[in-house]
């Protein structure tokens, strides 16, 4: 994998040129067809990011329906059937439609620029893997108007609620998840092929920016676990439509088998959603601290081993399902073991800040908030790892608080940090600083108002996924709902900032940020449609 010899440019650039030729001899098609047929990594990256933003708002609206219903005890706005559809669709859309495509979009844009490649290694596959997504999510959203309603069994779709007891639309849900899975696998293959083959001459694996590293490892994780997800939903399909009994106890099947398979996919999936975020933050913090990342080698080695170890912790999601004692202990110990090297990476970021020269531009604000709030999510993760205590935490709002801290001010803030960081490169303009600051502070306040009280509600005994609750949880839910609406509304500001930035604003030079050092800052801002057609002269930084 890691060739110490630089890749042979002649061969690879010929291939890339062929891809370009197929799309019309470097002259982009005109009109809407241009976007349908594009094989350019920047345009496909933009498509991914725009798609992800749309899904972020749709999933956000579903979350607000949930929060509106939970504003007060009692059933006011929606019935439980529809409430369950909203929680399920919110989770599915945010995980598979918003967070994952956003990271793929950032990878599409930035990986070739950061390694000095002219494009992705497989441009037509790139186009295909994107266009699968709108199809997949149109099908998923269409289930909302089907008889019996949309999937209503939670984003974890535990059998037999999702098989024997599921609405008829479940078959469409399975199909859409298959399509999204294929898209992810193809995207991952493309990213691996690009990173391994198209690095600028002289750039070795260990010279790659950490965002590229984390994405390389994430891509391997995707290829490893997406087929497991495909397998488990195919088993569901057979149970529902072809009379098998994989998960049906009455036919000799095992409902718990479903959970083992799901979480064997699901836990690495958690890392799929957070490792690229680590990468983004590890690029942004050194830039604005004007100091090299502390412990680069440790970061890379730890990320790689986390990827392997993430396959042996899955059953910590299943502590109360009735595992034997030895299994319970095994998964508690492995979870603690993997938590430590993951957690202490936070120390590396902080030490990078120590004795730096720090400025607080919008990308840095989001990256710093990521460090603090992700760490809070990490703390509740440590608590959840203690298996006996998990008997109390499991399936309560404490867990909801935990994974939202890891995913919203974790993954989502990292994505926003990345967007603010690279917007000057994409558009040639700086984002409006004042508006971005407003967006940042409102988001931080909104996120904490929303998710912090959930810890208390969960500890006090509120189960997750309920449309109505006992009176002692009323105050927490009131605050959470208000926070949720604040957070949701402040994302409109994000939309405003991005649209304004695309249309105009303060002009950005090639090196848009003073401390930025990676290859993408050597091309003009905005980056022209084709970059690095001749490989750049890469001088490895003494890492």
């Amino acid at each position, binding site marked *: *994998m*890691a*060739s*110490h*010899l630089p890749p042979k440019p002649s061969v690879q650039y010929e291939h890339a040129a062929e891809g370009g030729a197929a799309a019309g001899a470097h002259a982009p098609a005109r009109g809407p067809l241009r976007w349908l047929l594009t094989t350019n990594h920047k345009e496909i990256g933009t498509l991914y990011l725009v798609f992800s933003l749309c899904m972020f708002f749709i999933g956000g609206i579903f979350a607000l329906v949930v929060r509106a219903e939970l504003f007060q005890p009692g059933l006011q706005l929606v019935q439980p059937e529809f409430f369950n559809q909203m929680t399920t669709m919110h989770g599915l859309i945010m995980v598979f439609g918003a967070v994952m495509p956003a990271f793929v979009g950032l990878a599409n844009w930035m990986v070739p620029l950061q390694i000095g490649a002219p494009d992705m290694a497989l441009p037509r596959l790139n186009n295909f893997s994107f266009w699968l997504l709108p199809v997949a999510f149109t099908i998923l959203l269409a289930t909302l108007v089907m008889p019996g309603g949309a999937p209503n069994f939670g984003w974890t779709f535990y059998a037999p609620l999702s098989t024997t007891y599921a609405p008829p639309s479940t078959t469409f849900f399975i199909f859409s998840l298959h399509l999204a899975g294929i898209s992810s696998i193809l995207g991952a293959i493309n990213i691996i092929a690009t990173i391994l083959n198209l690095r600028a001459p002289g750039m*070795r*694996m*260990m010279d790659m920016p950490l965002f590229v590293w984390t994405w390389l490892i994430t891509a391997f994780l995707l290829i490893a676990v997406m087929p497991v997800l495909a397998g488990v939903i195919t088993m569901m399909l057979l149970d529902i439509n072809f009379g098998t009994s994989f998960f049906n106890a009455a036919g000799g099947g095992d409902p718990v088998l479903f959970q083992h398979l799901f979480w064997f996919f699901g836990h690495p999936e958690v890392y799929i959603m957070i490792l690229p975020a680590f990468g983004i933050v590890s690029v942004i913090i050194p830039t604005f601290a004007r100091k090299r990342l502390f*412990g*680069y*080698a*440790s970061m*890379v*080695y*730890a990320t*790689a*081993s986390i990827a*392997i*170890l993430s*396959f*042996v912790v899955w059953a910590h999601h299943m502590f109360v399902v009735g595992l034997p*004692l*030895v*299994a319970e*202990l*095994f998964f508690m*110990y*492995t979870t603690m*073991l993997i938590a*430590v*090297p*993951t957690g*202490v*990476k936070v120390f590396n970021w902080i030490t990078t800040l120590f004795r730096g020269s720090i400025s607080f531009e919008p990308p840095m604000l989001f990256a710093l908030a990521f460090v603090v709030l992700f760490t809070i999510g990490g703390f509740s993760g440590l608590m959840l790892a203690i298996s006996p205590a998990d008997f109390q935490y499991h399936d309560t709002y404490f867990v909801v608080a935990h994974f939202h801290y890891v995913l919203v001010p974790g993954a989502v803030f990292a994505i926003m940090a990345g967007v603010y960081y690279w917007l000057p490169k994409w558009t040639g303009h700086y984002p409006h600083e004042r508006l971005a600051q407003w967006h940042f502070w409102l988001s931080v306040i909104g996120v904490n108002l929303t998710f912090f009280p959930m810890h208390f509600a969960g500890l006090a005994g509120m189960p997750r996924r309920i449309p109505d609750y006992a009176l002692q949880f009323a105050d927490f839910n009131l605050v959470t709902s208000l926070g949720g609406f604040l957070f949701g509304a402040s994302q409109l500001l994000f939309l405003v900032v991005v649209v304004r930035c695309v249309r105009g604003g303060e002009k950005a030079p090639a090196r848009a940020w003073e401390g930025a050092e990676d290859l993408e800052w050597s091309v003009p801002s905005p980056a022209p449609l084709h970059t690095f057609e001749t490989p750049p002269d890469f001088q490895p930084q003494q*890492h």
Partner: protein
Amino acid sequence: MWQIIKSVLAAFFGVQKEARRREDFEKGRAAPFIIVGVLMAIVLVILVVLVATLAAG
């Protein structure tokens, strides 16, 4: 070989020296690291199973 095992152990622990890392990447082949990594993961799993079995006693 011993170097590779040491590097993989360091990775599992989550800390590695810059100099060691440079040596590793001079080797030019990743396959041994990946194979050793997977083997060590299996060893780790067996160890933890043993500990858990003992603890469950």
